[in-house]
C-alpha cells in the first residue's frame, strides 16, 4: 500500500517536472522581451537593463531554468515580475476560492448525480429517459451561459446570493457559502449530468451482476442490496469520472470566476498568462498538477477501498 502511494507520488513528481519544464520553455518560446512588458513604455533602456538584471533575465535560458528549478525545489516559487508579490503568497490567496468552488461543485455533483443516477437505474422508464435527455441537454450548455443566467436571475434579480466576489470561510462561513453557491451550481451542473449518466450506467450493469441476484436470494432488504452492495460496486467507474471532472472543473473555473468576479486561480492564470508573468504561471501550473496528482491518488485509494482486488496490484 505504502509502496503504491510512493510510486504514484514519484510518478506525480515526474509529471510536475515535465510539465513545468514544458511550460517554462513554452513561455520563453516567442522571444518577446518580458522586461519591457513589465516596466511599460515609459521606462528608459537603462531602466529596462537594470530590471533585467534584477529579474535574472540576462542569464542564458538554461541557467534561468535551473535557478527557478533550484529554488522551486526548496519551496520558493519566486515573485511575480509584475506585482513583485511572492508567488507562494499569491497562490495561497487564489487557491481557496477556486478550491471552494471546485470541491463544492464536485460534492454537489457527486451527491445529486449519484442520487439521480441510482433512481434512474432502478426506476427506468420515463424518469430514466427524461434523465438522459436532460443530461445531454445540460452537458451541451456551455458553462459560461449557465453562470451568466444564474448571476442574472439569482443575484441581480432575486438578490438571493451575491453577484460577485468571494468571502473567505474563516471570515464568515455563512457568507462563504453564499458567495460560492452560484459558482458551484454553475460548475456542478455539467458534472452532475455526467455523473448521473455514469452512475446510471454502472448501476444498471451491477444490478445485472450475478452477485446481486445472489444477495437478493439471501432475502436481504432491497435497500441493503442497492445502497450497501450494488452502489459500492457501481461507484468505481464513477470515481474515475470524478477525478476527470476535477480537472475539467479547474478549467471551467476560469470562466465562472470571470462571470462572478471571483479572485481565484483561474482569473490569476488568465491575467498572468496574458501578460507573461512567468513565475506566477509556473506556480499555477505546478499547483494545478499537484492538485490533480493528489486527487488522482485519492481516487485510486478510494478505488482500492471499493474494490479490494485493486489493492493488490
Amino acid at each position, binding site marked *: 500500500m505504502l509502496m503504491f502511494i510512493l510510486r504514484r507520488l514519484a510518478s506525480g513528481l515526474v509529471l510536475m517536472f515535465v510539465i513545468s519544464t514544458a511550460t517554462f520553455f513554452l513561455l520563453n518560446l516567442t522571444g518577446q*522581451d518580458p522586461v519591457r512588458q513589465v516596466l511599460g513604455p515609459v521606462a528608459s533602456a537603462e531602466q529596462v537593463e537594470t530590471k533585467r538584471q534584477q529579474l535574472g533575465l540576462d542569464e542564458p535560458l538554461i541557467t534561468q531554468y535551473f535557478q527557478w528549478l533550484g529554488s522551486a525545489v526548496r519551496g520558493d516559487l519566486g515573485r511575480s515580475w509584475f506585482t513583485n508579490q511572492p508567488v507562494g503568497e499569491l497562490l495561497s*490567496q487564489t487557491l481557496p476560492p477556486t478550491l471552494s468552488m471546485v470541491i463544492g461543485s464536485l460534492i454537489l455533483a457527486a451527491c445529486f448525480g449519484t442520487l439521480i443516477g441510482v433512481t434512474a437505474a432502478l426506476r427506468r422508464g420515463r424518469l430514466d429517459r427524461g434523465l438522459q435527455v436532460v443530461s445531454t441537454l445540460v452537458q451541451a450548455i456551455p458553462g459560461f451561459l449557465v453562470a451568466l443566467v444564474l448571476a442574472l436571475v439569482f443575484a*441581480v434579480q432575486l438578490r438571493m446570493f451575491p453577484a460577485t*466576489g468571494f468571502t473567505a470561510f474563516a471570515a464568515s462561513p455563512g457568507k462563504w*457559502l453564499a458567495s460560492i453557491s452560484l459558482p458551484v451550481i454553475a460548475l456542478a451542473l455539467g458534472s452532475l449530468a455526467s455523473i448521473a449518466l455514469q452512475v446510471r450506467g454502472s448501476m444498471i450493469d451491477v444490478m445485472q451482476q450475478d452477485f446481486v441476484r445472489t444477495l437478493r436470494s439471501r432475502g436481504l432488504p432491497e435497500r441493503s442490496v442497492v445502497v450497501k452492495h450494488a452502489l459500492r460496486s457501481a461507484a468505481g467507474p464513477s470515481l474515475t469520472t470524478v477525478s476527470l471532472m476535477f480537472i475539467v472543473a479547474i478549467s471551467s473555473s476560469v470562466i465562472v470566476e470571470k462571470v462572478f*468576479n471571483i479572485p481565484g486561480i483561474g482569473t490569476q492564470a488568465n491575467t498572468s498568462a*496574458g*501578460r507573461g508573468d512567468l513565475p506566477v504561471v509556473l506556480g499555477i501550473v505546478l499547483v494545478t498538477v499537484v492538485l490533480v496528482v493528489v486527487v488522482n491518488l485519492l481516487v485510486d485509494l478510494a478505488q482500492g477501498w471499493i474494490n479490494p482486488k485493486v489493492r493488490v496490484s
Partner: protein
Amino acid sequence: MRKLVGIAAVTAVMALTACNGSSPGGSAASTELDIAAIGTPESFAPGNFGTGPTTQFLQPVYDSLFRNTNEGEPAENIVTKWSYDDARTKLSLTIREGVKFTDGTPLDAAAVKANLDSARKGTGEAGGQLRFITEVAVTDATNLTVTLSAPDPSLVPNLGGTAGVLASPKALGTPELDTTPVGSGPYILDAAKSQTGIKYAYTRNPDYWNAKDFPFDTVEVTVFNDNNAILNALRAGETDFAVVTDKDSNSLKSAGLNIQSNPAYTTSGLYLFDRKGSLVPALAEPKVRQAINMALDRDAIHAQVFGGKGKATSQVLSSTSDAYIPELDKKYPFDVDGAKKLLSDAGYANGFILPMPDVSPIYPDQQAAVTEALTAIGITPQYQPVNGQTFISDLLAGKYPAAIFGLNSPRPWDFAQIALTPESLWNPFHVSDPTVVDLINKAQGETGEAQTETFRQLNTYLVDQAWFAPYIQSDNVFASSADITVTPQRYSTLPPLWGLAPAQK
C-alpha cells in the same frame, strides 16, 4: 429511494435559505465605499505607476504634494505655498508642518526630496512626468527647491496627481513597497482583507490631518475582469461606483443607478502614425489623411458607437481646454465623394491597403465603424492579429502605420509631450514637422493667454494637416449607487476620492 431524495431536497433548501439570510446587504451604510476598478496598480512605489485609473488605489493611502481643484487647478495640500522663478525653471515649495507617515516618519522637506528623487527614477508614467526635474534641494525642514532643465507647464498640476504622491522615506526602495504602501494619506491599506491585484481594502488613518474631506470609514477597491460582472455588482448593490460603457448606461439608469458622464480626456480615432509614409507611402500625403477624415461619419459613430456620449470632433486637443476651436470641427464634414476625390487627387483613386492591428476584442464597434468608413472610399483595412501582451510595444515600435486607438488628452501641453514632438512616445515613426516643433517650443516658455494662443495655432495646424483622424473625445460614464454623490475633476479621467461622498438624505 424517494425518502433519500426528500432528505436531500430539504437539506438543499435549508442551505439556500441560510445563504439568503446572510446575503450581502449592499453597501448602503454611508461608512463604507465600494469602488469597482478595471485595472490593477502596477506598484505602490512612487514613480512606478501610471497616471490614470491607478489613482483609485493610490489616493486612499497617499497624500500628494498638491491637490487639484475640481477645475483642475493646483491647490494647496502638503505644499502650502509655491512659486516659480521668472525663467520658470526653479520651483520653490513650502511643506505643511506636523504631518507624519503612518510609520511615524515625519513628512518634511527631506522626505519630499527623497520621494521626488526616487519617483523620477521610476519606470511608470508618473515617473515620466518628472523628467524635467534635474535637482531637488532641501532648504530647511519645510522648504525646498526643485530645479528643472526646461519649463514644464504641467509640472505643478501633475504633482497634484500621482506624480506627486509621498511615501515614507523608510519604505522607499524596499521591495515591500511594491505591494504594501506606507503613506500619510487618509486611509491605511488593510493587508489582511486585501489581495494584491484583486481587492484593496482601506481603513481610516486615525491620525489623518484632513479627515473631514474623507467621509467614509472604509474604502474597498475591487478589481473586475469582466464588464458584465461590474454591471451585476452595480445592480446587486455590491459596488457604489464604477466606470461603465456608454451603451450600458441607459439600462443601468432604469435599474435605479445614478449615471453621470464626464469627459474622459481621451481622444479616440484612427491614429495615422506613419505620416512619413515609411510603411504606407499614401499616408505621407496630407490629402489622403484628409480624405480619411472626411470618410468618417462622426455623428453616426457618436450616436451608435458611443451611445451619444462624449463629443464628436476632428481635433485631438481636449474640448475642455482653451485650445479647442469649435469651428475646426466643420473642416471635415462626412463626405464620401469628396474623400474619394481627394484620394484620386493624391493619386490613389484605386485606394490602397492599410495594415492595422486587429482591435476587435477591445473596440469591436469602433473597428467596425472605421472599416465601414475606409472601405467606402476604397481603402482596404488589413487587420493583423494582435498579441495582447505585445500590442503596446508593437505600436510603439512602429509596427503599424495606423491604429484605432485612444490617447489620453488632458491639457494641451501634456498631449504635445506624449504625441507630437519628434521624441514623443506616441510618435512612433518620429515624424518631425518644423511648424509643430516650433509651436511646442514656443508654448513651453509661455503662460496664460499667450500660451493658449500658441496651442490654438498648433491645433489648427494639426487639423489642417490631418495628423490624426480622430472621431470622438469620449466621455467616461460613471455609474454610482443612489447612496453616494460623485463630483468629477477637470482633466482627470476619474473623480478623485474626495469627489465621492454620501448622498444627503
